[in-house]
């Protein structure tokens, strides 16, 4: 669209302000991790790396970290299985209630976190008689992670024509062979990306976790939440907060790279670095990350 120089510049300023709004708090918290003082006074009196070893040696934070990893991995595995089954059904079959599947999958994340949390907690404690613990958190996390895998895989399958699978069947391949040699290679990177994003989501979640975690266990976000009210722990909390950011940024970044590159390959341009594909892929990735078909 043709815009005047003035409105173009105005738009740039708006973009700059929005980006600053998004990133300034993260930068501030990163600086606090190196704060030599023990309060949240700004500006920090000095900088130090003193708190990093302290945070890594903190037994509570360390236990919580491993709990988060365990929960995240288990939830991701369940979400991968259920999410890809659902996306295969929706992308490769037409049936009554197909729309409803997309709706059903997104519901656990579209409804407020307290709803999902309390509904599952009610069911576990009041109906099933299961005590809250790691198992119940895994079930809860898996429930809202399904949508992430589902969206990624469904977006991919929509772009890869079903006629490849038909051709494979026509050439004599049976169901498994077609899946193994045609469908799976096509959806592979979308699966990996979906898994990474699902893990990042689980690693970070706190609301549903609060309602479904047993009294004895702590995930890393819960650990941060309980300790940030304790003035003595603040310097360690600041460091753990920054470590959490770093840990969750890696899977998200990798997932982005993966869906981008394969977008290019799927469009028939291996490598996918040509500007034209890069543009198309950027859009596709956005769709994949948040899409409901």
């Amino acid at each position, binding site marked *: 669209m043709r815009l*005047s120089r003035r409105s173009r510049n105005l738009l*740039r300023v708006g973009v700059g302000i929005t*980006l600053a709004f998004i990133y300034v708090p993260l930068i501030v918290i990163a600086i606090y991790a190196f704060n030599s003082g023990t309060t949240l006074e700004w500006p920090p009196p000095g900088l130090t790396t003193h708190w990093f070893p302290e945070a890594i040696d903190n037994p509570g934070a360390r236990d919580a970290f491993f709990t988060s990893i365990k929960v995240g991995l288990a939830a991701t595995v369940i979400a991968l299985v259920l999410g890809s089954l659902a996306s295969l059904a929706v992308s490769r079959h037409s049936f009554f209630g197909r729309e409803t599947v997309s709706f059903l999958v997104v519901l656990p994340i579209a409804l407020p976190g307290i709803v*999902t949390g309390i509904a599952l907690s009610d069911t576990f404690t009041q109906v099933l008689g299961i005590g809250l613990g790691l198992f119940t958190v895994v079930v809860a996390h898996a429930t809202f992670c*399904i949508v992430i895998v589902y969206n990624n895989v469904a977006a991919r399958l929509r772009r890869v024509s079903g006629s490849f699978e038909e051709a494979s069947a026509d050439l004599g391949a049976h169901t498994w062979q077609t899946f193994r040699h045609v469908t799976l290679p096509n959806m592979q990177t979308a699966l990996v990306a979906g898994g990474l994003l699902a893990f990042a989501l689980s690693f970070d979640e706190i609301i549903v976790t609060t309602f479904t975690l047993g009294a004895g266990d702590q995930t890393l976000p819960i650990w941060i939440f309980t300790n940030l009210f304790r003035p003595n722990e603040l310097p360690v909390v600041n460091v753990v907060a920054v470590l959490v950011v770093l840990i969750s940024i890696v899977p998200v970044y990798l997932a982005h790279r993966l869906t981008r590159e394969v977008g290019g390959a799927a469009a028939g341009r291996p490598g996918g670095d040509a500007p034209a594909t890069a543009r198309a892929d950027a859009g596709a990735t956005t769709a994949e990350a948040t899409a409901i078909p």
Partner: protein
Amino acid sequence: MEAAGVATGPQRRSAGRRLADLFHGRPRLQLGTLLAGPVSWLVVGYIGSLLVMLVAAFWGVNALSGEVSRSFSLDNFKELVEEPVYRQVTGRTVGIAAAATLTDALLAFPIAFYMAKVASPRIKGVLVVAILMPLWSFYLVKVYAWRTMLSEGGIINWALDPIGLSGPGFGTTAVWLVESYLWLPFMILPIYAGLERIPNTLLSASEDLGAGPGRTFRRVILPLAFPAVVAGSIFTFSLTLGDFITPSLVSPETQFIGNVVKANITNNLPLASAFATVTIAVMIIYLLLARRLGAFEHL
């Protein structure tokens, strides 16, 4: 290339092969097998849980023992409606959710528009990553960062002090600010994707027919992008509605639905369930409206 692998594949009639033959030419059976797991997890497990919550919302608590008593009564809902505090809490929460949604829509549109229609492909790629990165990540850390920034000796007061102003401090304004901050990327991405889908030829056509940028924006871009805005608003609205972390970190004095639910899970699970049911009712109305406005194709 795949065909070669298929042709040389094993030909023995294993159990797996027999199962494959069973599936062959039976799309309904394939479909049923694919759907069985996810649908039973989500329908029996998740929808079932929501129903349990709905039923529990009508239970009560024995005043003496503090145990949940499973007898049907409307008392919880009566309390939520009649108790002025709860009415206030509901109003405040829905109000903040609406305010944050509106703020996000206003903040998101310019950057989404810039990404979709103005930026060069390279800049666009960078911006997509910049918005995507903080999407689902480190939610608690973000709230915590705002807590430090808004605190008495924090960076906001420090920056505003020289010009004789002070920040909002902790309270409802802080909640509005933080909620708008948290869910902004959820608004940017759908709007960006929605704008991306508008063909440039349409905008050129509008210009050729004599419309200025302002008119093109109002008459062509806005109507076409509106469903995407609604799609984004589902997340901003719902995520704000169910948030209790933000209020407890930046507004310890005021209550929101999330805080009340959280505070009651141990002592009064039925009341907590009833309050959560209220948010679900609000969300269902919102989702049905969004569906009617065509938002579901844009999520």
